[in-house]
């Protein structure tokens, strides 16, 4: 932009008192209006409100603005809001720059004078950049009307069902051999008391009957390329060895000589290397535990329908999808040996093992016995692995408190003369689940609050639990017959998922959402959504809601669309300047740059659909021919020069 043509509007937001309480907004506006090229500078209580947005729109029209600066909150929050306002007023939205004077200024400083000076500097830098900005047109990208759902727990199922019902093609994959996820291992979904397997069965039944749904079990994503609207995903499917001919007769299981602990029974019982995870499992066939199987071949001989083939190799599947929903769930915390006595005796168990002991279809047929005896004094320790324990996430696991109270009631209904103690740091039975807490209290369950984690000592046959009761401030010793550790949720394979999908993690290790409150079902990457406990601990109901929310975001993106508009903040070559050295080609991690000939001359060219807009090629280009739209050399340099107080 040439100086005499520059007509910039600057808008300073008070954000109530959030900004105006620390930053002298009037002073900043006054200062901005003194900068050459600024034709109007205003300040207002809430720039993001309709009145605030109309202020910008009216100025664009009436004052013929050709650049807009809004100094307000983080662009993560309202950049889109203001871009749209600018666009609606007929100005190219890429002639707009946002200045963060809330998160980066008023919220983090206390000195009014210094904060105001900083706000003025940041506004000056943005004005300098806007002067160099150029109008850009969005890149039209064709979309694929299909979605990949990674993970088939309740969140994934809920998402896949919502998408499939709307008519999109849905691929749902799970790394396990059967659908249903962690919930299938639960016996009591408090407060309704339904078995997890039965809870997901109608969802799975409906899903697998739909013609537009494709299920892949034993499958994991190994790489992702492309971007929103057109992701290219490579999936590795480990062999299942057993074909659909399987009739569930069970002869193979009888013939198999290998035994390993059964994770579906809380490792309380053994299972074979060839096994049926649970009777409602989908796909309805036996599965082979690859880690345990020795490929002895006895099952092949035993199978009457010749459904087993151990020579099958893993296969790779390439999918083209418009959006991805990550619903990889969580893993229950596995206490270390000796942690609260775990692993030292069979009478310190986890909540998952307790679930199996309370199940009519469990290893004891629902009789609450351990080592042949009915435990009389039972101590529950809550928050293990979430707030206390060797490795903590510091995140409340949300479902445990209601499950503990529900389980104590179930134990009392079986053995009314049990003495039950719940050792807790906080009881969080929110909503209607509070009723369970009161029922447990009425039925004589003793709640013991601790601040220091309790200690468990195993002495031969005896288990002693030591705890300091925080309300009466006295040490208590409880001789227990059974100790139940209520284990929290830990991130499931989040490190690997984050690496493959290029996402980030929260401090507690779960996958980070785009915004905790405003965009909880999205990731910062366009077209990749988040559902369920992958984004942090959630109860069953919350996961179902989260799954549907992620699906509706994907629907809004893809349904009935042939193409979408992508941000044009990509790299672009000035063919006049390009010397054809092709340093940029080696820089690009996305293979977006290729060679082209202009007459005889070799130059680089960028595919805007493959370019992700990192700008590393622009930083490397020795001739200044490669430019990063929205972050061009001259634009950033203008910002840097204005930093020192030079008003250009």
């Amino acid at each position, binding site marked *: 932009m040439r100086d005499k043509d520059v007509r910039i509007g600057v808008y300073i937001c008070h954000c109530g008192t959030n900004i105006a309480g620390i930053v002298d907004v009037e002073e900043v506006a006054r200062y901005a209006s003194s900068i050459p090229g600024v034709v109007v500078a205003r300040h207002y209580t809430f720039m993001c409100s309709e009145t605030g947005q109309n202020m910008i729109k009216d100025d664009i029209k009436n004052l013929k603005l050709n650049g807009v600066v809004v100094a307000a909150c983080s662009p993560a929050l309202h950049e889109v809001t203001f871009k749209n306002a600018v666009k609606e007023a007929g100005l190219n939205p890429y002639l707009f720059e946002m200045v963060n004077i809330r998160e980066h200024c008023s919220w983090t400083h206390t000195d009014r004078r210094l904060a105001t000076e900083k706000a003025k500097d940041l506004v000056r830098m943005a004005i300098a950049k806007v002067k160099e900005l150029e109008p850009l047109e969005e890149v039209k990208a064709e979309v694929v009307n299909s979605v990949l759902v990674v993970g088939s727990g309740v969140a994934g199922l809920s998402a896949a069902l919502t998408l499939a019902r709307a008519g999109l093609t849905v691929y749902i994959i799970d790394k396990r051999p059967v659908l249903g996820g962690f919930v299938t291992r639960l016996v009591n979904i408090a407060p309704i008391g339904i078995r997890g397997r039965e809870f997901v069965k109608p969802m799975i039944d409906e899903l697998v009957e739909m013609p537009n749904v494709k299920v892949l079990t034993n499958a994991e994503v190994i790489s992702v390329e492309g971007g929103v609207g057109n992701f290219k995903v490579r999936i590795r499917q480990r062999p299942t060895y057993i074909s659909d001919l399987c009739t569930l007769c069970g002869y193979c299981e009888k013939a198999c000589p290998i035994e390993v602990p059964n994770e579906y029974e809380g490792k309380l019982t053994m299972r074979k290397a060839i096994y049926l995870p649970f009777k409602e499992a989908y796909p309805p066939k036996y599965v082979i535990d690859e880690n345990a199987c020795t490929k002895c071949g006895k099952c092949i001989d035993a199978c009457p329908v010749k459904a087993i083939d151990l020579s099958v190799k893993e296969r790779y599947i390439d999918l083209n999808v418009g959006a991805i929903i990550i619903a990889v769930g969580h893993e229950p915390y596995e206490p270390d040996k000796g942690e609260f006595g775990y692993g030292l005796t069979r009478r310190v168990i986890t909540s998952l093992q307790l679930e199996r002991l309370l199940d009519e279809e469990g290893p004891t047929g629902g009789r609450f016995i351990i080592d042949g005896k009915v435990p009389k004094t039972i101590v529950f320790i809550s928050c293990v692995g979430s707030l206390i324990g060797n490795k903590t996430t510091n995140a409340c696991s949300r479902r445990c408190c209601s499950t503990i109270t529900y389980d104590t009631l179930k134990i009392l209904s079986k053995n009314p003369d049990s003495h039950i103690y719940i050792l807790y740091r906080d009881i969080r039975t929110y909503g209607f689940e509070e009723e369970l807490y009161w029922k447990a209290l009425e039925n004589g369950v003793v709640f013991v609050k601790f601040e220091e984690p309790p200690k468990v000592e195993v002495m031969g046959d005896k288990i002693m639990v030591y705890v300091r009761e925080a309300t009466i401030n006295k040490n208590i010793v409880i001789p227990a017959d059974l100790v139940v550790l209520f284990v929290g949720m830990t991130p499931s394979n989040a490190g690997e998922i*984050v690496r493959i999908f290029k996402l*980030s993690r929260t401090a507690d290790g779960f996958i980070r959402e785009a915004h905790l409150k405003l965009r909880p079902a999205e990731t910062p990457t366009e077209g990749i959504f988040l559902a369920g406990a992958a984004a942090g601990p959630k109860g069953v109901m919350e996961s179902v809601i989260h799954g549907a929310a992620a699906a509706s975001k994907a629907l809004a993106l893809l349904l009935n669309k042939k193409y979408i508009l992508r941000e044009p903040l990509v790299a672009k070559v000035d063919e006049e300047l390009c010397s054809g050295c092709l340093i940029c080609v080696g820089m690009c991690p996305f293979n977006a740059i290729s060679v082209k000939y202009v007459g005889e001359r070799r130059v680089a060219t960028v595919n805007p659909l493959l370019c992700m807009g990192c700008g590393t090629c622009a*930083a490397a280009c020795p001739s200044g021919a490669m430019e990063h739209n929205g*972050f061009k050399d001259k634009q*950033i340099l203008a910002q840097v020069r204005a930093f020192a107080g030079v008003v250009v």
Partner: protein
Amino acid sequence: MSSEYEPKVLMFTCNWCSYAAADLAGTSRMKTPHNIRIVRVMCSGRVDPQFIMEAFAQGADGVIVSGCHPGDCHYMEGNYKALRRMLLLRKLLEQLGIEPERLRLEWISASEARKFVEITTDTVEKLRKLGPLKPRLDYVRKIMEEVVK
């Protein structure tokens, strides 16, 4: 207070990790030094050494370049490229009479608001001790002009 020397620091943050960490520091109401001015780029790999040279030429006392942790880059490997460029640039700075510690490269993930506070605070403290940048500015500017050409 007003007579005391206050360093001026320019900070380049990537959009995905470090800018978000600065946001989180604000949302958590952590106190950061007021001397930092952030320029947002999409990736630390976008930071052209000439931006940093220009910042020093314009009187910045220190420059921080901050990106995602190695292996966590939103664009796969942009932060490695930043690392290579910064290592070379520090050598160049030395030759120009600028203390190389005035340029810092740091990895700050989106959840590391505390690290953001620690690094910015530490940088300002170190620069306070180091004092204002007193290189042969005219010399730097001359070299810059050649680089830009």
